[in-house]
């Protein structure tokens, strides 16, 4: 310790000439101490302080100054370190953010205001980023959904659609395009060029359009007729509809098969023609009937009053003619569907036809052989026997007339189910179960011209007095009354077939063997509605089936995983909360592609490749349908 009591009698330390003076020693120690401290401060070590009090003013000032310097430098160094560590820290956060790690956060606790603010700024920026990213994510999801919806639309519009790239590669094709061309999407998409489908004669034109459209869309026609060839080389007349897809060099084309269209159009025109003919002939027949009634009335009156035998004879002839005319009118009324049908009993068609054979053989003569093709099982149908008789008699007499030199008539009966596909080509026919009656002859047949007019009233090719031309129009009218359809297939010189489709509105189960509805298979019933599910499950159990129940899609998948080796069929409700019936069926198919499924719905639905039943059906109907599917071969 430096003793500050010391006094220099010589007048001050600095001027001391006495080499041996002990105070001189002291002073130099103090100066050395000061130098050491300054050096340390210079290196950044601000910990030591000079804790000395000396008398000498100059020395004390030096010490004070050094202490002051130390303090100031210390605060500068603190600031420096604070800034440095703050920068390092924020730098690290920014670096991580830049790498996409948004879980980091900058600290906002630095004692230096600007560093704190920088931290807060980085965090705000980070939050903003996260917000943008979330927004982009939802947009991305929306876009994906939109894309999926778009695809769904494109694949379900029912018209062939393709998307073509600039180099003519087909990027997308839908189911209809597959059907139109016979190639599968896998073969087409990204692999085949649109030009491969063009016919020779159309090639140049279509390539030109393709190029023109990309230069200026308005230069190429939006719609034009063309021809394309399918896998088998068959040429199809088509109507093209082409447009550019915005922001791309791709075009989208819809292709309508006009060959099919024309056929369908003809069917529609024909049915409309028959409809208006019906209305017209109905009116005429009605008026005519009134006139006939009064002629007949007065003629009958005249007959009873006439005394002259010749006059009486004439009157009888008038009455007879009137009665003939009345029966024409009746036929016309049938054609125009003015006749009401009352309560009808169920007719056993198989039995009826079997009996009918004996009745027609004498009618057609011995040159013509009549054959019957009847199904094994009984078919019941609600139809007035006289109506059926009129239909068959007309078809058979026509067949006979077409075979003056003899031949064969085949009468056949069967039950068929017309599917959605048939509905596409015959839009007037609803898909469903039908009774089909066929009358085939080996006669002279008809040309197209005749065929298109046969159902018109009074159309006949037979000589005067032989045919009235009302036969087929009566048949047509009757079949319409039952909601049925009649189709003709004929080839000149070979023969003719009339096919009658009568809709089976309700299945008649009285003829069905209950035993045949039973089964031992394992079934999975999926329905969220407890009542329905339990009803169906217990019905199935009653008939011998082993039934598992699930209340929703996920549960169904869980159960299915466990018992999939034993399950023969899954009955799935269409509308369920969460996973829908269709989604579930898709997932089940992913697990086992050959799985049999039946879709249950509260109302009639139609899906491609999916068997569906309405839940409102009777138990027998459900069991019957189920057996049908189960009996189908894999």
């Amino acid at each position: 310790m430096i003793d500050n009591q010391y006094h220099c009698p010589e007048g001050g330390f600095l001027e001391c000439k006495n080499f041996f003076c002990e105070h001189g020693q002291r002073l130099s120690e103090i100066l050395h101490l000061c130098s050491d401290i300054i050096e340390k401060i210079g290196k950044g070590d601000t910990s030591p302080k000079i804790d000395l009090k000396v008398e000498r003013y100059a020395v004390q000032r030096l010490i004070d100054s050094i202490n002051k310097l130390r303090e100031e430098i210390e605060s500068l160094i603190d600031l420096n370190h604070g800034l440095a560590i703050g920068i390092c820290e924020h730098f690290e956060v920014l670096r991580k953010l830049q790498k996409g790690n948004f879980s980091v956060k900058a600290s906002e606790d630095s004692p230096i205001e600007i560093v704190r603010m920088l931290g807060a700024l980085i965090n705000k920026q980070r939050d903003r980023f996260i917000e943008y990213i979330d927004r982009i994510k939802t947009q991305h999801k929306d876009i994906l959904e939109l894309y999926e919806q778009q695809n769904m639309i494109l694949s379900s519009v029912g018209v062939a659609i393709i998307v073509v790239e600039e180099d003519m590669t087909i990027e997308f094709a839908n189911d209809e395009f597959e059907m139109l061309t016979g190639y599968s999407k896998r073969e087409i998409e990204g692999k085949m060029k649109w030009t491969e489908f063009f016919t020779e004669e159309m090639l140049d034109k279509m390539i030109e359009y393709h190029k023109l459209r990309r230069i200026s869309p308005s230069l190429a026609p939006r719609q034009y007729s063309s021809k394309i060839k399918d896998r088998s080389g068959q040429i199809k007349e088509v109507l093209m509809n082409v447009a550019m897809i915005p922001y791309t060099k791709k075009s989208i084309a819809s292709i309508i098969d006009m060959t099919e269209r024309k056929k369908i159009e003809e069917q529609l025109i024909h049915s409309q023609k028959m409809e208006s003919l019906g209305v017209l002939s109905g009116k005429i027949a009605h008026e005519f009937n009134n006139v006939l009634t009064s002629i007949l009335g007065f003629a009958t009156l005249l007959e009873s009053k006439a005394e002259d035998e010749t006059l009486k004879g004439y009157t009888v002839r008038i009455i007879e003619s009137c009665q003939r005319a009345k029966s024409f009118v009746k036929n016309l009324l049938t054609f125009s569907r003015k006749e009401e049908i009352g309560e009808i009993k169920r007719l056993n068609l198989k039995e009826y036809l079997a009996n009918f054979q004996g009745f027609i053989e004498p009618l057609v003569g011995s040159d013509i052989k009549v054959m019957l093709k009847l199904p094994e099982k009984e078919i019941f149908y609600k139809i007035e026997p006289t109506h059926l008789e009129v239909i068959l008699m007309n078809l058979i007499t026509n067949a006979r007339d077409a075979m003056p030199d003899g031949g064969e008539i085949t009468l056949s009966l069967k039950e068929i189910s017309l599917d959605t596909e048939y509905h596409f080509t015959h839009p007037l026919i609803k898909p469903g179960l039908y009774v089909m009656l066929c009358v085939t002859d080996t006669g002279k047949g008809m040309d197209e011209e005749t065929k298109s007019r046969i159902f018109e009233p009074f159309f006949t090719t037979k000589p005067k007095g032989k045919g009235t031309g009302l036969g087929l129009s009566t048949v047509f009218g009757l079949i319409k009354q039952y909601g049925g359809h009649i189709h003709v297939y004929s080839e000149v010189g070979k023969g003719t077939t009339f096919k009658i489709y009568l809709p089976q509105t309700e299945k008649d189960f009285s003829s069905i063997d209950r035993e045949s509805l039973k089964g031992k298979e394992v079934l999975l019933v999926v329905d969220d509605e407890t009542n329905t599910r339990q009803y169906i499950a217990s019905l199935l159990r009653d008939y011998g089936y082993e039934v598992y129940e699930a209340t929703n899609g996920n549960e169904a998948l869980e159960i299915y995983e466990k018992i999939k080796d034993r399950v023969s069929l899954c009955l799935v409700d269409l509308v369920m909360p969460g996973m829908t019936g269709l989604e579930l069926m898709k997932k089940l198919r992913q697990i086992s592609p050959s799985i049999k499924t039946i879709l249950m719905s509260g109302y009639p639905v139609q899906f491609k490749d999916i068997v569906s039943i309405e839940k409102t059906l009777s138990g027998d109907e459900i069991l019957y349908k189920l057996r049908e599917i189960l009996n189908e071969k894999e």
Partner: protein
Amino acid sequence: MADRLIDYRGLKCPYPILKLSATYPNFKEGEIVEVLGDCPTFEKDIKAWCSKLGKTILNLEKHGNTIKVTIRI
């Protein structure tokens, strides 16, 4: 064994941590680095740096004025 050695001897604080911040992003994550420094405040600085940036100090040795810190990046 350390994967690398960085010598900051002779450098005044806070240069060492600023330099370390700038160079270490080139290192692999999990690498072990030995850092030498002799500035009087080096120990305080490097400890603060490690805690703020979430790096682990595995070892700290003093040899006279020199401090050797082993860090996992």
